[in-house]
């Protein structure tokens, strides 16, 4: 009895550390990547992408599968930082799309990515629960307000943790507005911020414009001067060790094509 009891805290702490690895898709991409001679793509394409890209990338993946019936597209959506870490640990990915250039640079720095292209940009908004408990409203006088004029003094606020791209951007915006000590919680990703706003547990949260669009009207959103211009670029790159490089290039081409850009702007992203 004594020994297992003493081992338990070890296991629990370990499970907390390894939770990240469990997210990586265990299977290798199917063997026999597309032969260069044949123009028909086949096998599996594995795309690692930032959580904020979930909806658009799923749609684009289906599009690519429709164009190439023998190709199967699989996604791993998570925080960009976690994904970059998984790829650095050898996760078998073909394409990586990050929510900021810092995480992509981690991989280019280690020569894990061939070349990268910025395919979209995003901006930030202040999301507020439909009940609007703090009574956040546009100040009189018209024009686009600043973040400081929108936020009441004793507001309960959620933002992303500074370790993830949306948090790095939020910290920058709050710092510039002199509001660095306003947040009450630093969430692990942007969707967690959105959830706390939707539940009405915070008065406000900083999220991407595209998250507001994806929430389908379940939150109110205010634009503010510092955040409404495109603030963070989304780079995409084919990985050096991509198991299916031909399909990977087809995916990035689709992303940068007119059609891909239309899907992205429809979801609220800005053109690069």
């Amino acid at each position, binding site marked *: *009895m*004594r020994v297992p009891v*003493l081992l338990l*805290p070890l296991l629990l702490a370990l499970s*907390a550390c390894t939770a990240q690895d469990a997210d990586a898709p265990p299977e290798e991409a199917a063997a026999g990547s597309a032969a260069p001679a044949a123009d028909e793509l086949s096998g599996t394409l594995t795309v690692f992408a930032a959580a904020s890209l979930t909806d658009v990338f799923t749609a684009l993946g289906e599009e690519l599968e429709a164009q190439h019936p023998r190709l199967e597209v699989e996604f791993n959506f998570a925080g960009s930082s976690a994904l970059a870490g998984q790829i650095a640990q050898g996760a078998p990915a073909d394409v990586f799309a990050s929510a900021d250039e810092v995480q992509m640079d981690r991989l280019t720095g280690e020569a894990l990515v061939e070349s990268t292209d910025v395919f979209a940009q995003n901006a930030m908004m202040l999301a507020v629960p439909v009940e609007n408990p703090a009574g956040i409203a546009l100040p009189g006088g018209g024009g686009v307000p600043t973040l400081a004029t929108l936020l009441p003094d004793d507001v309960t606020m959620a933002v992303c943790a500074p370790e993830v791209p949306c948090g790095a951007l939020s910290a920058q915006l709050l710092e510039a507005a002199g509001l660095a000590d306003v947040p009450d919680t630093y*969430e692990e990703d942007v969707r967690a911020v959105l959830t706390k706003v939707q539940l009405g547990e915070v008065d406000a949260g900083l999220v991407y414009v595209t998250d507001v669009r994806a929430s389908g009207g379940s939150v109110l959103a205010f634009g503010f001067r510092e955040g409404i211009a495109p603030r963070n670029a989304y780079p995409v790159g084919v990985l050096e060790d991509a198991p299916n490089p031909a399909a990977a290039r087809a995916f990035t081409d689709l992303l940068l094509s007119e059609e891909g850009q239309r899907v992205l702007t429809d979801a609220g992203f800005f053109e690069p």
Partner: protein
Amino acid sequence: MSRTREGTRVPAPLLIPAAIGVLFLTLPLAGLLIRTPWSQLGTQLTAPGVGQALRLSLVSATLATGLSLLLGVPLAWVLARSRARGRTVLRALVTVPLMLPPVVGGVALFLVLGRQGIVGSWLDQAFGLTIPFTTTAVVIAETFVAMPFLVISVEGALRAADARFEDVAATLGAGRWTTFRRVTLPLVAPGIAAGAVLCWARALGEFGATITFAGNFPGTTQTMPLSVYLALQRDPDAAIVLSVLLLGVSLATLLLLRDRWLGRAGTA
């Protein structure tokens, strides 16, 4: 002497799986220790916020264990001794947090104790009390997830304890409360101690319900598991150092306690 030795010899069919089991459980720990950047240990450990997160983890896990003892021991007695109907259903309900993904547990706590929750909205309006994003929320989340471990241990100990001692105490004129205090409690003390250790360990490692219900703010709600998770996004070496620190401190605590507390449990 020789009889006891023969009695404890491990049968061969058990030996190999047991050895594999030990390896399976300890190798990841070894991996962690091998990978630890020992040269960075000093700088990482003195980084701002590390002491804060460690203190918060130890304090909140201890408070959660105290709360679990206060509520869990009586609950275990009810489950083990009372003959009320619906006990089976009650037992199943009480162990729900064991099966529930902790993140879902955190959302469930919001729905009851959050600002918009059934009880929480009343607390907010009547007393101006909001629980989420406070250290209280950390303790509540940890208690919710960890208390079932204590309840199950103590209930098992109560069932295994010889009820005749209690009957004898009753025939000698002891009231029910006296019997519980003077006979039952000492009888199951080792089980309570083991349950409390399990509960403390589970509370110390709690992640999902805490980050969901209590949020993540340095000094108030950012416990060690949360800071390990976030460090992992930025700097895996820092995450490993933090984990090793948490392991070291929790092992030291348990070893210290073992002599005065579990020492008796071991010999009982």
